[in-house]
């Protein structure tokens, strides 16, 4: 009888520990996503400024600039899911990268103090976003591992937890952002 009680006790204890660790991981993901959101918002705030200041110079890049504005509007819509946000962020990053590259072709832009300041701010925020993405990816990987690995997968199935998407880290991000090279070209 006592042996049975002990076994039941141990099983219950393990179940509680597993449940708590899964909840902890899920909350960690949400917590860090809030951090990602904050830096993404910072970037959204800069975009209208950037578009306004460069559009008069960048005649040929009108479509890219419009795309950036559209993406920003889409990402700022209330009620979109985290996964959608992640997808939009990837598009926005690549569009902004295209603008960054295109700016090289306009010497007038580089003489504009205001634009340069904006670009520097954007670069700094880009670094923060990259850090936030990496933190998020780690938290999501921890959660996904727990969801798929035995025995936590049983508990996760019962708790209705599902795998989450990670941010794709682009090749350019893996490289060091060389600010000096960007400006001295």
């Amino acid at each position, binding site marked *: 009888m006592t042996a049975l009680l002990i076994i039941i006790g141990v099983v219950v204890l393990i179940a509680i520990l597993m449940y708590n660790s899964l909840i902890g991981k899920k909350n960690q993901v949400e917590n860090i996503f809030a951090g990602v959101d904050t830096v993404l918002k910072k970037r959204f705030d800069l975009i209208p400024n950037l578009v306004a200041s460069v559009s008069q110079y960048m005649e040929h890049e009108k479509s890219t600039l419009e795309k950036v504005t559209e993406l920003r509007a889409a990402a700022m819509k209330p009620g979109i899911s985290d996964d959608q946000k992640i997808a939009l962020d990837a598009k926005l990053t690549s569009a902004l990268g295209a603008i960054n590259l295109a700016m090289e072709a306009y010497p007038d832009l580089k003489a504009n103090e205001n634009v340069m300041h904006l670009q520097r701010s954007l670069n*700094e925020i880009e670094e923060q976003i*990259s850090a936030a993405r990496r933190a998020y990816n*780690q938290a999501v990987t921890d959660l996904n591992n727990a969801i798929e690995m035995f025995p936590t997968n049983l508990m996760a199935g019962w708790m209705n937890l599902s795998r989450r998407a990670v941010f794709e880290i682009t090749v350019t991000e893996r490289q060091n952002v060389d600010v000096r090279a960007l400006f001295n070209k």
Partner: protein
Amino acid sequence: MRSTSELTDFYYKELYPSLNELEETRKKIVSQLKWYGGMGAVSFLLLAAWMGKNFGLLHPLSIAIVIGSIAVSGITYRIMTHGYAKDFKTKIITPLIGAIDPHLLYNPDFMISQHLFERSDLFQHTIDRYRGNDYVKGSINGVPIEFSDIHAEYQTRDSKGRTQWHTLFRGLFLVAEFNKHFKAKTVILPDKAEKSFGSLIGGWLQSINLSREDLIRLDDPEFEKHFVVYGNDPIEARYILTHSMMKRLLDFQRRISHPLFVSFVHNHIHVAIGTSKDLFEPAVFTSLLDYKQTMEYINTLRNTIGLVEELKLSEKLWSKV
């Protein structure tokens, strides 16, 4: 900052007159040491023989005499080399540091403050004795930096009430301004647990380390193999530890071959290198003109001061300008 070969040239050319002078002193000291050593050994043996005959070798008095002789010879060695060590620091190390960068000040008797050492949070133990020397302060490419030799110890008492001293850290300690703003604390320590227990059990042991903040696992497997990172903000830790920063720290670790401890607190980077010895002490039993010896002085200085360039601390982001 000058290159290693330029510094080697400087050492052998510009410092040659002082080196020669010191080398003469060194030779004199060595011959004196040999003389005193010989005399000491002979008298010690005579005394030991006499003691052994009259009281027995394990008599408390005999043991006291053995300990006393060791202490006396240690003190004699200190006294005899003291002036020489001081001269070496003023005539060789001071100009050498000046040659590396004229913005650096050197004080052989001073050390980095205990407050900064404790702020780094690298070694979580109360410190009962804090000593150091060879303090360098200044700026490299506009980055404020300071470092010195540090020997931090703590005390314990055994069951018989005897005090014992334990070394908490001995080596080089450096503090420099970091090129990014941050609020959280990030601590990087050598990875002992994963090395001895493997990544699964070791990783689990690290994650339950109660005295530290949360374990932060980073996306560079090679870095993870060598270091363990604790911090209270996972995003900021990655903002500081970019992929390139992790690679630079790893490269630095590979080159120094001593345990490396790094922390980011209060907008500063704190680096502790556990060399387990004093840095700029002059060689007594090898020649000052010896190439290997020379390179050790130059490389230590260059590696330490070069950390600012190596970690690109001077490349500031706009918000820190």
